[in-house]
């Protein structure tokens, strides 16, 4: 076989494989995007075409914002939004504060309690959430924290894994820096505030992001701890509005809904819940990938 024809077939094969990969990945992306596209389309379609199941890709019928109009008047949604924003911001601050306060002492060379704290923190990683479900609930009840916003904020105050991650990050800082500052009479609190934290922006952003997403998306414990509806975060409201509603409808599909708008309301609610994340997402993706890759190194 002569050389040129060999490289020609090679080139052809190269084009074939590249095309195959590109086509497959586009198909994967479409599968992942389609549910969101469908939801968006359905939320602005004519409610009647949604009920007749005529929406498949693009909005059907004249653009209609019926669902949104009703949603905007729904107090529970806005209350849920406000609560979620509160739980996310304050909760993430609690998370970061506790994580920093644990990671800093653990990262100091010569700290005598290192081994104890390390085991004390790491041990809790191996206890399954299922096993702790009932005892944790009883502890929170025993502390009279049921139905209190405080419960949501402090019961999930710090994750051992992130403490260990941040500790490793702090440990990489040059020790001479600390020694010099200590000789100048700086206290540990000053060191933490003036030296360590200003140098940890990226690490704190990454860990804070993970905590934040967790806060924003959580529903289960809020549903368990809070009976007062005005304290419910958005996800609990959504669960009632979307998941339980869809279940009920599945159970009794023949039942004619009296409200033609019920469907578009559901889709609109999904869009409202996803929108903030979709907007912020491009800006935080970088930290997100960094955090996940960080996890892979630690295994």
């Amino acid at each position: 076989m002569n050389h040129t024809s060999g490289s020609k077939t090679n080139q052809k094969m190269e084009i074939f494989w590249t095309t195959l990969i590109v086509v497959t990945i586009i198909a994967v992306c479409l599968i992942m995007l389609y549910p969101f596209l469908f939801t968006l389309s359905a939320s602005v379609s004519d409610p009647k075409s949604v009920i007749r199941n005529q929406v498949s890709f693009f909005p059907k019928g004249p653009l209609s914002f019926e669902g949104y109009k009703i949603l905007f008047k729904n107090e529970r949604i806005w209350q849920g939004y406000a609560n979620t924003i509160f739980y996310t911001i304050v909760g993430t601050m609690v998370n970061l504060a506790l994580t920093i306060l644990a990671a800093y002492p653990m990262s100091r060379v010569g700290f005598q309690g290192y081994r104890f704290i390390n085991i004390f923190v790491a041990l809790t990683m191996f206890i399954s959430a299922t096993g702790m479900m009932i005892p944790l609930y009883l502890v929170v009840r025993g502390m009279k924290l049921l139905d209190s916003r405080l419960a949501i904020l402090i019961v999930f105050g710090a994750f051992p894994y992130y403490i260990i991650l941040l500790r490793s990050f702090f440990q990489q800082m040059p020790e001479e820096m600390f020694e010099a500052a200590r000789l100048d009479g700086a206290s540990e609190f000053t060191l933490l505030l003036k030296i360590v934290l200003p140098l940890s922006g990226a690490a704190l952003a990454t860990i804070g992001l993970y905590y934040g997403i967790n806060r924003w998306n959580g529903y289960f414990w809020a549903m368990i701890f809070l009976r007062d509806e005005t304290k419910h975060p958005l996800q609990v409201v959504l669960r009632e509005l979307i998941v339980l509603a869809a279940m009920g409808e599945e159970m009794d599909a023949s039942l004619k809904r009296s409200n033609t708008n019920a469907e578009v309301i559901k889709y609109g609610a999904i869009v409202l819940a996803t929108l903030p994340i979709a907007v912020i997402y491009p800006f935080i993706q970088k930290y997100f990938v960094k955090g996940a890759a960080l996890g892979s190194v630690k295994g």
Partner: protein
Amino acid sequence: MQKQKIKNKSLVNHRELWIMLIPVLLYFLLFKYLPMGGVIIALQRYSPFKGVLGSPWVGLEYFRQFFTSIYFGRVLKNTLMIGLFDLVFGFPAPIILALLLNGLRNKSFKKITQTVTLLPHFVSYVVVAGIALNMLSPSTGVINAFRVKLGLESIYFMQESKYFWGIFTTMRIIKESGFSAIIYLAALSSIDPTLYEAARCDGASRPQQLKYVTLPGIIPTIIIMFIIKVGKIISISFEQVLLLQNDVILDTSEVISTLVYRRGLVNADYSYATAVGLFETFVALVLVLSSNALARRMKSESYLW
């Protein structure tokens, strides 16, 4: 002067460090260790009015009840099968996705596709489950609309037990593949590019490059991730199962953790639920510890190579 240098280490102000630790220690004591001690109620007929100290001891009664009930076999089977589905279908998915993404030459296209595949991970399970339920709905779901167009009949997906494992696994794969792929992408990016050049010079086709360069490069990561995943096979996130579950399909969708939720938090059978949870904790602990030990050994071995 010399003395001071030696004592440098003790310049660390231990007292201040301990003061910093107080909130964290309190947090772990109250919300991690206190509940751990609380599992003792699995051995009692716990009554909230009498408390842990006043409730009568019943020994292993609740464990016996669980092991001899019809739930035990069913719940164990569902837990293992969902875990197995997740392992068989959910484990390879991010690897394939990472290989595909890695095969893209155009940098900006690669970036866009990764952004798209990562997106579902950000969205909450409540929303994802809501979308899934709506798409599967017999009356207004796209999937059934499509089936009707093809002349097939509508399926009540969420009312038939046989679909649950598949639906749950599919939802997880679509949501998490992009995120899990990051780890493999990191491994792929650490493969020496000169290996590919050399392979191309030797006339290796794309599949041959995959077989002789790419796969050997990420096999250690794959093995370690697999071992870790096997260790977690029994620990299915109940918050995810719960969202897709309903009373009609409990026979395939009830897993250990949702049973704990239903008996403990819904029916207030605290002791029974704690016993069931304790059983899960024990099995999960054994699995995770052994898989971690194995993974660590593999890791140190792969350093030697």
